[in-house]
């Protein structure tokens, strides 16, 4: 009898598979439902009628959302913040992490202590807000980018990843006359590509999803990011649980399909890239525990 390779499923296995299937469904169904209803044809959509699949399919809600200035603007600003923010995140985090791998650098311990300290203690919401206000960054996208340039956790994970790289290559490059910055760009970064990929994703997702910073730093509705706009569309229209907006006006598009379409647009980029990039996300998490 082959002990571990046996494929015969016991009753316990069946129960386990069945439970996992149920769990997977509770994770999948909300997406499928929201995507399905957001595709409803406005003319045949009946509020308060329960169905899983629309009577008639149509992209009307998406057409409408993507034709409004407020939605397009928020999309543009979110893309801007995500792209610029992520590039700066990666550049600053990786260069700082590499700098901190140099154990002989005077002041290194002080900087590391400072970094760890910020992980444990932070000034709180209001002092951070006052700083951004005093810098004149309110209602500027730079407030969102600059306040999240890097973070202690990413730095420490990237640093310990770089410390696990074989030092011989960097030494050889230095002997060949490379400067320390040359070593960083030509040797360390190419060797760190798995970490670069993982952290690019982490940073990009964080920027795309950022809500609270946008809420406090951007008060001008014309500057809103996608998450702020979606929150207003989806939640504020029914914040007391007694909203009665849906579909009272037959000439307009039903609010409900619009609200769902806006949620779908906010999660779509992640849903689209996720299956292809999942392994990098997982790898990113594993990076941290390599040495620990």
């Amino acid at each position, binding site marked *: 009898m082959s002990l571990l390779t046996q494929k015969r499923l016991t009753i316990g296995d069946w129960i386990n598979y069945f439970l996992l299937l149920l769990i997977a469904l509770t994770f999948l169904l909300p997406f499928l439902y929201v995507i399905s209803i957001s595709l409803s044809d406005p003319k045949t959509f009946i509020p308060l009628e329960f169905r899983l699949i629309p009577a008639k399919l149509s992209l009307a809600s998406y057409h409408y959302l993507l034709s409004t200035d407020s939605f397009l603007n928020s999309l543009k600003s979110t893309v801007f913040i995500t792209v610029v923010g992520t590039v700066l995140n990666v550049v600053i985090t990786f260069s700082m992490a590499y700098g901190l791998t140099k154990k002989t650098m005077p002041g290194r311990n002080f900087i590391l202590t*400072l970094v760890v300290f910020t992980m444990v203690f*932070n000034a*709180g919401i209001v*002092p951070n807000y006052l700083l951004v206000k005093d810098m004149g960054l309110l209602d500027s996208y730079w407030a969102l980018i600059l306040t999240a340039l890097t973070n202690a*956790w990413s730095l420490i994970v990237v640093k310990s990843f770089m410390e696990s790289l074989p030092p011989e290559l960097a030494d050889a490059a230095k002997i060949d006359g490379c400067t320390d910055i040359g070593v960083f760009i030509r040797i360390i970064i190419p060797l760190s590509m798995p970490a670069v990929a993982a952290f690019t994703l982490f940073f990009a997702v964080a920027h795309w999803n950022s809500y609270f910073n946008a809420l406090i730093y951007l008060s001008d509705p014309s500057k809103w990011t996608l998450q702020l706009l979606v929150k207003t569309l989806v*939640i504020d229209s029914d*914040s007391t649980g007694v909203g009665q907006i849906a579909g009272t006006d037959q000439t307009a598009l039903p609010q409900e399909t619009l609200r769902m379409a806006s949620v779908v647009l906010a999660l779509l980029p992640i849903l689209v890239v996720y299956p292809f990039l999942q392994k990098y996300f997982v790898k990113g998490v594993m990076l941290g525990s390599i040495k620990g």
Partner: protein
Amino acid sequence: MILRLLQEGGVHTLNQDFNQPMAAAPPLPRVQKGRLQHLWKQVLIHRYFYLLVLPGLLYFILFKLVPMWGLLIAFQNYSPFQGIWGSTWIGLKNFHDLFTYAHFYNLLRNTLIINLLNILLYFPVPILLAIMLNEVRHEAFKRVTQSIVYLPHFLSWVVVAGLTYFLLSTDVGVLNKILHSFGLQQVSFLSNSKLFWLMITLQSMWKDAGWGTIIFLAAIAGVNPSLYESAVVDGASRFRQIWHITLPAIRHVIVILLILRVGSIMDVGFEQILLMLNPLVMNVGEVFDVYAYTQGILNGQISVGVAVGLFKSVIGVLMVLGANWLSKKAGNEGIF
């Protein structure tokens, strides 16, 4: 939570660095130079490293250290027009007001209950899920399930809150549509203060429990398969294998994560709570950060907002240090 464990992993290596003597400097030349001169030479040698560190360091100083200056406001009757220099000092009055304010205990209660529920109900789920996933023998089934349960971790709280509305709200919620189709009275789940804590816990579970399995799956993957083989030879059932091999293998990780979780008991998923709050559940949902935000930023009570934030941060640090001490006491490596 996972982040915490990773910090643990990362900081562990960092700890070793702290213990190393600072200067493994090249031997000094014949002439005995002054310490300052030697230091200057070291700085010059490392000039490119400073250049690499500089932008990040500036960030930490400007956006992490400088705001701490603003904590002084907690001891002032702050007026934005007079600034920190011009505002009057009132000592601990803001804190006195905070502690004598009946509302304060509401904030404390909500914070603690939401966290305790999280520890009791949420914490075991990733462990259980990891064990269940580990028992799956079909790689494809396992991979697909993993992909699906990790996914919500990458959604924003706005999207998760939105999905919750589409499930529970009175106007667009699926549950109410079903009730309606049976001709039943609609229920406003989202403004029911009795359900709020449970809903927050379930929401956290949905979003992060799947992602939380990674760390346990990694620990389980490190178990030597021969242990299971000999257990089978000894006639151990699957349950006994889980109990005697799998669980002990991840016990260490569980203890560390639990201690860290207790250490962050002052932290509540703030974006999450803020998104789910409405006037009807305010009394059960308001936590320290929400209060700091509404008072300090929305209502212009800046000193109150800063004081609440400072109180929370100080207790938070004490809890983390306490948890770290406990972790060392329990025979684990500390985080610092």
